[in-house]
């Protein structure tokens, strides 16, 4: 039970219920019209503001380790949080149109590689939390979603989600965001396809196929723009309220690395010339668990300090896509051999992506 509680640190859940309607225009989202320009203005003056705080207000010397670390934190923390708020709001709105139930029904009648591709793509946008992995897995398998497609979804959903995507876009630009998305979907697609081809249905725990099951769906579906906006705002509050400590922790680690770790150090261990750095990064990343929002600030510093892009992205994929708590949860539905094949296939895919990037970029 303790493991499962921990695995619920993801907050990828979007309300799909109908809240009590009513409230003024201001309360139901009108304040956004005022908040938006204010946020953009703050975003624009953030860099000088952070410098002023670190070097004037606190009197730290520019170029000193502590000074650079503090300035980094003061700039990154508000920037990332603001970016995240804006992104989550937009995506939560879109997600009021999606649900795991709808995704399941879309996948139920598909077969072959197409089902894997569709599952990998739907995994990007469908709200998913790894603490629901077991009921979701059973729900998918029992309505006839191919096992391989189910795995494609399970890999893609935590690894290539909208928060990861937009943070990557905001911090590194569209090229890296696009590369991460395309290769993440490719890993989910290929590993799910391979797992499907292996025909390992008999390595499911028997109760998966025998337990009484009913494919019901919840009664409440949101309708209309104001209600969807209200839901999106509430989801944003929930998600940002939940992930901000992880993000601040991530940025704090990043700030420490930024100020105290010399660039040559990481270049030697995580640079292109060290071929073994990719499998090592994946090996370290797999047992670790963090959502994408927490790991991206760390990745940012790794890159800035000379880590190769492929190595850094492989690390991020390993941390978000595979984790010890999720493995423990999945053990309830997968026999050890299937679980091992699943982990091995996905990890191998991630290592390949790392090598590919390091070779190309």
């Amino acid at each position, binding site marked *: 039970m303790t493991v499962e509680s921990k695995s*619920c640190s993801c907050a990828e*859940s979007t*309300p799909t219920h109908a809240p009590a309607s009513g409230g003024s225009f201001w309360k139901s989202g009108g304040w956004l019209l005022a908040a938006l320009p204010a946020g953009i203005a703050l975003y624009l003056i953030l860099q000088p503001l952070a410098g002023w705080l670190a070097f004037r207000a606190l009197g730290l010397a520019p170029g000193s380790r502590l000074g650079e670390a503090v300035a980094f934190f003061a700039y990154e923390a508000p920037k990332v949080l603001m970016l995240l708020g804006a992104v989550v709001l937009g995506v939560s709105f879109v997600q009021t149109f999606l649900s795991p139930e709808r995704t399941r029904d879309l996948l139920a009648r598909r077969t072959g590689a197409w089902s894997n591709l569709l599952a990998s793509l739907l995994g990007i946008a469908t709200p998913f939390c790894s603490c629901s992995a077991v*009921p979701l897995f059973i729900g998918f398998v029992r309505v006839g979603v191919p096992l391989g497609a189910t795995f494609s979804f399970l890999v893609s959903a935590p690894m290539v989600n909208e928060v990861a995507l937009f943070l990557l876009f905001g911090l590194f630009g569209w090229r890296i965001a696009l590369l991460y998305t395309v290769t993440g979907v490719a890993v989910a697609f290929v590993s799910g396809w391979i797992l499907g081809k292996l025909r390992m249905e008999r390595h499911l725990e028997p*109760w998966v196929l025998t*337990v009484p*099951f009913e494919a*019901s769906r919840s009664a*409440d579906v949101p309708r209309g723009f104001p209600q969807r906006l209200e839901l999106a705002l509430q989801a944003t509050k*929930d998600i940002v309220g939940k992930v901000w400590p992880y993000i601040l922790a991530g940025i704090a680690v990043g700030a420490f690395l930024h100020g105290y770790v010399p660039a040559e150090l990481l270049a030697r261990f995580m640079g292109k010339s060290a071929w073994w750095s990719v499998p090592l990064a994946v090996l370290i990343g797999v047992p670790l668990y963090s959502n994408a929002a927490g790991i991206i600030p760390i990745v940012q510093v790794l890159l800035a300090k000379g880590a190769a892009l492929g190595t850094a992205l492989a690390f991020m994929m390993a941390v978000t896509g595979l984790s010890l708590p999720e493995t423990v949860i999945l053990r309830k539905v997968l026999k050890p051999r299937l679980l091992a094949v699943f982990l091995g296939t996905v990890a191998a895919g991630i290592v390949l992506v790392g090598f590919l990037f390091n070779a190309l970029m």
Partner: protein
Amino acid sequence: MKIEILGSGCAKCKLLAERAEEAAKGLGVDFTVVKVSEYPDIVARGVMSTPGLVVDGVVKSQGHVPTVAAIRDLLR
């Protein structure tokens, strides 16, 4: 009224249980809150994303924690 909270014991499930209880008290009806945390029982009720709210055998919400006001509407 029988209110079931479906979930494997994560923070969101506890929050949902608290809110459901508050909402039910506000309605002034007789009710019991039961926590359903075993996976086979969750699956049997047709819920794929936890936490789930089931009232008298009917799935009212899943995958999120509605507000107290929203739960009150769902209980009516």
